[in-house]
């Protein structure tokens, strides 16, 4: 119902942003600032990204205490085990310009729950998690999470005991973060694949906790695109 009460998007058939985007890209290519091939490769690279490697990293850490130690000590090195090379993976071969190569895995315990925000923009570990959700980019989330984390988490459906330490991590410089949530009860004997499936993107940001049988983010309204991306397949 929340989808239907909204006015239709206020854009003309071709928006000013679409015009400007094309103009800037064409000029940059004409002037040799980057090549059309560079742009194509970057789009292709972004299409390969998503939260799956980070979910696998969490599952591996649950199953292997030595790997968990490595993940907490050196997130960049641990990422290699799930196929993510922070440095040489992106087309640049020096990391992505916006996400750098400093990655920390924040380990939840029964007494500590981490949740991530970037109050200054919306820094996010795209290299291992893909593009950030829109709500993560809103000034609202960025304003409130650092000061009223319990209220915001409750809005996401997470209510935590008063004696649990909620640690908000504000990703304000070059380090990017993922949360390593607690392995839920009821998953004894599960395989890495089964465990990976319950570690959703929201669990990795810290606004949800994994549960057996829950393999997707909480259902929320989706604002549709006027001209959605072509994924090429």
């Amino acid at each position: 119902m929340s989808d239907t009460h909204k006015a239709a998007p206020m854009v003309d058939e071709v928006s000013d942003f679409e015009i400007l985007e094309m103009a800037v890209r064409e000029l940059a290519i004409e002037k040799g600032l980057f090549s059309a091939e560079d742009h194509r490769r970057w789009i292709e690279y972004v299409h390969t990204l998503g939260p799956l490697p980070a979910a696998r990293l969490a599952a591996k850490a649950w199953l292997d205490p030595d790997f968990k130690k490595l993940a907490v000590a050196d997130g960049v090195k641990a990422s290699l085990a799930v196929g993510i090379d922070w440095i040489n993976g992106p087309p640049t071969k020096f990391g992505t310009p916006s996400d750098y190569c400093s990655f920390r895995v924040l380990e939840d315990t029964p007494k500590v729950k981490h949740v991530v925000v970037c109050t200054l923009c919306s820094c996010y570990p795209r290299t291992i998690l893909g593009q950030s959700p829109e709500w993560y980019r809103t000034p609202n989330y960025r304003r409130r999470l650092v000061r009223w984390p319990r209220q915001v988490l409750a809005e996401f459906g997470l209510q935590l005991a008063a004696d649990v330490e909620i640690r908000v991590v504000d990703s304000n410089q070059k380090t990017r973060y993922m949360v390593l949530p607690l392995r839920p009860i009821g998953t004894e004997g599960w395989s890495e694949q089964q465990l990976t499936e319950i570690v959703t993107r929201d669990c990795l940001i810290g606004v949800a906790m994994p549960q057996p049988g829950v393999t997707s983010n909480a259902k929320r309204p989706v604002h549709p695109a006027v001209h959605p991306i072509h994924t090429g397949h």
Partner: protein
Amino acid sequence: MSKNQHDRAHHAKKASGVGDPQCFRGEAGQAKFKNGDKVRIRDLPDIFYTRCQVYTRGAVGRITKVVYESPAAEDEAWDNTDHPEWFYSVVFRQHELWPDYPASYKNDTLETEFSERWLEQA
């Protein structure tokens, strides 16, 4: 590189195969602080740009990790990489940051990073 007519590839050359901030390793000299140090966040004048959140200014926290060396964001924001500094991850008690934070949640904390210029011994 601090000049306008600089080599556009300067960062790519330095960081290729190494990564950023790894490419600044060894350039910041001796770290002034270590894990466990109590630090106060300085309230330097705000002009044009900073990545030191106003909500941390004047607050006292504890260093949990000496993270990396890098030019400060305030300089990199103009593509100047001449003076790398040490960066630290600092944890604060929420009631240190927000006087109205509910007393019943006294364990709650917040962690964020600072370049060395923003810290003083507390």
